[in-house]
């Protein structure tokens, strides 16, 4: 069991549920959810979030805008962000990397891919 607190951001209730269920199976039970980037920003401080998993296309604030907002905030710029999206062309991936995401997952994904990415990010960000 991990004590890390994860914020799952997606406008699709189905995807939030799938990500949360997968997180539970790999030991992350401390999970908070938000339906868009704007709501997510409001959740980071009160919930002391350690890790963000976000969709890209969302109303109010996209996952890329959320990542940029996190990176530009001195208090939270260290929080790892993993983007989970249907967008899988080169230009999109490069745009996300330029926005400083720590990992990129293309839907549909397997639980193993999510686990590997989280492990990889945790390893590199705690070094």
């Amino acid at each position, binding site marked *: 069991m991990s004590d890390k607190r994860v914020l799952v951001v*997606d406008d*699709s*209730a*189905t995807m939030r549920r799938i990500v949360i269920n997968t997180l539970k199976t790999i030991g992350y039970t401390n999970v908070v959810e938000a339906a868009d980037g704007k709501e997510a920003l409001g959740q980071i401080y009160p919930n002391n979030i350690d890790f963000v998993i976000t969709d890209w296309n969302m109303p109010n604030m996209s996952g890329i805008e959320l990542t940029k907002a996190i990176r530009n905030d001195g208090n939270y710029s260290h929080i790892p962000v993993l983007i989970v999206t249907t967008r899988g062309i080169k230009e999109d991936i490069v745009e996300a*990397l330029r926005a400083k995401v720590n990992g*990129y997952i293309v839907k*549909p994904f*397997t639980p193993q891919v999510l686990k590997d990415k989280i492990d990889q990010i945790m390893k590199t*960000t705690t*070094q």
Partner: protein
Amino acid sequence: MNKGGNADDSNRIDELKNVINLGKQIFGFFDGLMRFYYEITPLLGRINQSIEESSSKLPRASDSLSRVTKETERATIEILDILETMSQTIEEGKVQIQEYRTRKQKRNDTIRICIRYLDTVAQTLPVEDAGKLRKKISEITPESEDEDILSSVPGYFDRIADYTSDISISLQVQDITSQQLAAVNHLVESVHGRLKHLLDNYSGAESSPISEMVGSDPSTFDAEAEYNRSGDKQNLADALSEQHRQSPASQNSNKEASNTQILPTQAEIDKMFGS
């Protein structure tokens, strides 16, 4: 009347004839135009009515698509609830089986101690009685066959858990199709907006400019979303992420994201993937 005056009169008469001929031609043109107008007016009315009817149905089509998304989302979450319950039940089953195996092991250990004790006792008995006792002892010997069956049960549970996981992956199709439906919805709303604009213009009513028409925000969905489990896109993302991670600027910023991260150029990316 002089000669020059006659020539002027003749010219005027020719001009008048020309004007009359032109008038006849113009009249013919306007006559044709009026006939065309009378013929086309009811047709335009019918087209207008048809567009109005079609246009009034578009918001309903848009609502129906939104309802489809909501209902499939609700059904998908119900399935996910069941899958989660199944996963919990599987885990509980595995714990129960493990508990049973542990208890059985303890019981077998006790039986083995008893057998050893009885065997010692048998050695002190007359031959006939000892034979009877040993026969009884052989009947209570713990069998390893049970253990073979029991040890395979967790494997079956794991396979069921894998199947539930596969179903969970497949259910991501709901999010993907909802994005495809959102793209169609956006198209329907755009068509409706343009038709409304056209009808307002036809009826002389005030209409908003097309650019100001409200529709769903295209940044909230991916019109190119597709259900593809080949892993090609993930491989591309992994390769680009790895290249990004190995860039010097990225390595300099271990814990905090760097402001000067170096990313592969488009040419490098194309070379990498042979495109």
